[in-house]
């Protein structure tokens, strides 16, 4: 028997899903819209993709964003992994102190972090550029990476590493043969999340970017003032497609793992 409540929650769920995905569908549709006014349909075209390919300023911003996201996500994931491994070796009391410190940036408004970081860079006479941008994004993304990796590392049976040692591994071999493969999923998840956060970041970028390192969100934001053109939609569509491909790739690997029951690591 379906109660009235079931019906209501079912429709609510549909509404939420629609709310999440309608904007994406709209972006894709409008990227093929043959009109300068974004929200009015005037026939199919691919000319925005052509204009996007010629818009060097936008493409430069895309390249900067991709570089920054790549570097900061990799750094954040690496630091998160080292933090997790280091904290597993700490006494519980120090572990609590350390993890508190690691997660604190999560509850500090980003604008405060941005202002503070700008002051730090200023006092160090560090010129703003790619380095400051990456470091700024690292401050934002590291807590997320640490959160994911610490959780996964904490869930590992500590006997696994001991078993590897017992079976002849030195510390490095135990890490490479046992700990790292078991954390691979978490590392991938952390990296993707950090990449996304960094790629879409606007607040921290505002404070830490320099001349020639305008990120994509900053560029798009500044375009708002002069008027958005539908080539933004084309860019958005390409990014959605890119994301979709990544998810598909990761998902397929997951599926293979489930179907084959654990993957053989090549020796």
């Amino acid at each position, binding site marked *: 028997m379906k109660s009235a409540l079931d019906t209501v929650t079912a429709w609510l769920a549909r509404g939420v899903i629609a709310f999440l995905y309608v904007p994406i569908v709209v972006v894709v549709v409008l990227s093929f819209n043959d009109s300068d006014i974004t929200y009015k349909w005037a026939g199919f075209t691919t000319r925005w993709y052509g204009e996007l390919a010629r818009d060097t300023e936008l493409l430069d911003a895309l390249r900067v964003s991709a570089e920054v996201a790549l570097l900061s996500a990799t750094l954040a994931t690496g630091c998160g992994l080292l933090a997790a491994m280091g904290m597993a070796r700490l006494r519980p009391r120090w572990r609590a102190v350390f993890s508190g410190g690691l997660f604190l940036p999560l509850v500090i408004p980003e604008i405060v972090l941005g202002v503070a970081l700008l002051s730090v860079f200023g006092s160090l006479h560090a010129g703003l550029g790619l380095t400051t941008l990456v470091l700024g994004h690292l401050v934002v993304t590291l807590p997320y990476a640490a959160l994911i990796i610490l959780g996964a590392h904490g869930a590992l*049976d500590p*006997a*696994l590493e*001991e*078993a*590897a*040692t*017992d*079976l*002849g*591994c*030195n510390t490095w*071999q135990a890490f490479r*043969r*046992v700990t790292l*493969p*078991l954390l691979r999923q978490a590392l991938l998840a952390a990296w993707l999340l950090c990449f996304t956060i960094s790629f879409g970041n606007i607040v921290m970028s505002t404070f830490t970017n320099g001349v020639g390192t305008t990120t994509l969100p900053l560029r798009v934001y500044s375009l708002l003032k002069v008027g958005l053109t539908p080539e933004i939609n084309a860019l958005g569509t390409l990014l959605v497609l890119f994301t979709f491909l990544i998810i598909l790739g990761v998902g397929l690997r997951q599926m293979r793992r489930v179907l084959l*029951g*654990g*993957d*053989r*690591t090549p*020796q």
Partner: protein
Amino acid sequence: MTSAPAPASVPASAAAPAPAVRLTGIGKAFGPAYAVKDVTLDIRQNEFFSILGPSGCGKTTLMRMITGFETPSEGTVELGGVHATGVPPHKRDLNMLFQSYALFPHLSVYDNVAFELKVRKHPRSAIPGAVRDALALVRLDGYGDRAVAGLSGGQKQRVAIARALIGRPSLLLLDEPLGALDQKLRAEMQLELKKLQREVGVTFVTVTHDQEEALTMSDRIAVMDGGRVLQVDTPEAIYERPATRFVADFIGTSTFLTGRLGTDGLAVAGLGTVPVPGHALPDGAQAHLAVRPENVTVARTADTLPPGGVALPATLQQTVYLGNATRYHLTLADGSELLAEAGGAGRAELPVGEQVWAGWDPERSRVLAE
């Protein structure tokens, strides 16, 4: 298995084989508290040895010092006559069976078992055959391609055993090996582990809190309490001739009469003098007399007790039916409790709440120091 490249000292005696493990005055302190204190112990080659004690007695810490996961605060460890204190675990010629099995979830059964050979760079061509033999040893032929996650608890343990034995260590340490198995499987595995140990000729050292496990499997048992080893002996000796009150109480069941030793026995206040077996304690010493329930006979009258033994009047408080035996809870004249147990033909219908007689052969009781 590669031999430890540690500085090898010459074994103490060339004639007798060096003990598999020799612990000398070993201790481990965590902060100000000692988990293990002053343990000196030899474990012989090809022996099934158990370290038995209640939880928190230091048995796990002691084992971890043998494996090298813990470094002793004092004392020395020798493995096969070679000094091993401070040698890291991966350079010791031993393996461990973890309580949680610690199978690598990202590897198949085959890769779990092959792990040590691959790490230690055995010739690639020798590995498949060795894995097949190891799996056959634990009766898991054909399980190589399975994922670890799909195995039952008993199968996981077998894989763990195969993985631990494939490198033919001289010593296998087993941490509560049967703790995670259900009752029936446990009884089966007790016999199987024992059989396996004889087959492979490897020294087994198990750590357990389960006395039945220790008694059925072991050649010798070390009983531990409070970080110290109280007695090292064969299962029979541990049970029949416990060295301390703790051992008598922890292994099996004992009831104790406490009093002062005299020439004709143990003088217990309110009970008179109870005959005792031969002992090494001086006259006048405070002592306990330990009596096992299965050695105590209960009868309606004193003259129906076996002749020549102790005979004490007692009040029957309760009878408990245990299936294979019946247990009688008795109170003696001094108010102390005494347990008796009878099985098979020895069982008697006795009136609860009334006076009965309890007796035993003094030779089947044991005098223990205060």
